[in-house]
């Protein structure tokens, strides 16, 4: 057994493995592309640029969309709040006008005694108590 040479006796053609790699890649390519579809030259290089460009754009667009959404909500809330405050102020103005009208009516048509008689005793007591307080 020891007389046998352990060296590999088989030989291969020159550049076999390089050619094998090329032919395997070519075959793999032809298998996956055998549907007949082709693409423009350098398409995948430009595709990458296009995608990256659009991705950045869409990202800033979506951020702008969010900001615009928030601004729209804020504007709507502001308008609603304004409307309700206008309504409130109108009510206050109406109430005040009515009170002024009552006040001026009694002042014009009643004397001091009549006005005093309309006040309840508790109110009067409190008012007088306030006056009776000694200044500190």
């Amino acid at each position, binding site marked *: 057994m020891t007389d046998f040479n352990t060296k590999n006796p088989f030989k291969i053609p020159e550049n076999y493995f390089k050619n094998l790699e090329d032919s395997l890649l070519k075959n793999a390519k032809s298998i996956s592309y055998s549907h007949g579809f082709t693409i423009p030259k350098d398409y*995948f290089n430009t595709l*990458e640029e296009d995608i990256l460009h659009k991705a950045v754009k869409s990202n800033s667009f979506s951020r702008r969309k969010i900001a615009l959404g928030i601004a729209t909500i804020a504007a709507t809330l502001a308008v609603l709040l304004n409307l309700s405050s206008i309504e409130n102020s109108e009510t206050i103005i109406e109430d005040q006008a009515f009170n002024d009208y009552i006040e001026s009516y009694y002042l014009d048509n009643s004397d001091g005694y009549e006005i005093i008689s309309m006040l309840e005793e508790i109110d009067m007591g409190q008012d007088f108590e306030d006056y009776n307080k000694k200044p500190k």
Partner: protein
Amino acid sequence: METQQSLFISSLQEPETKEKAFKRLVQEYKERLYWHIRKLVLDHDDANDVVQNTFIKIHLNIDKFKGDSSLYTWMYRIATNESINFINSKSSKMGLQNQEWIEAKANGLKADSYFDGDEAALILQKIIAKLPEKQRIVFNMKYFDGQTYESMAKILDTSIGALKASYHHAVKKIKSQLND
């Protein structure tokens, strides 16, 4: 492998590393996704639109990717859905059924400057266009891309049995059409 993928996904989700990682993702998957889409929509310009939309969707939704499936499966699913949505929208605008629109596209392949297949390839594409949508997708993925049923089941969210049946029906129909 899994750790590598989860690290890559994290880098896609981190605002500081997102752009760089996304560039890597585009470089890695652009061709595979393009060819998958191209075989579904047939026309190069249409495939270009769909592949760009697919990557934009990936970019916009990568933060929501929870890693329930592999990144590859998730992206293929987006690409498939985008292709179907594209066909739906184009065909409805023209008042056609999806299959009619695809058949019209397949009939126009001979005049397409980006199709250099021989007569057999042209006939095959015309027959594939006549298949129902699911069978068409399954046939393309299995026959041209050599995808496994396991991988296809994850992408299309269908059972392996259903996929085998679809492929079997598709092959049977194609063979019978070729014999006619």
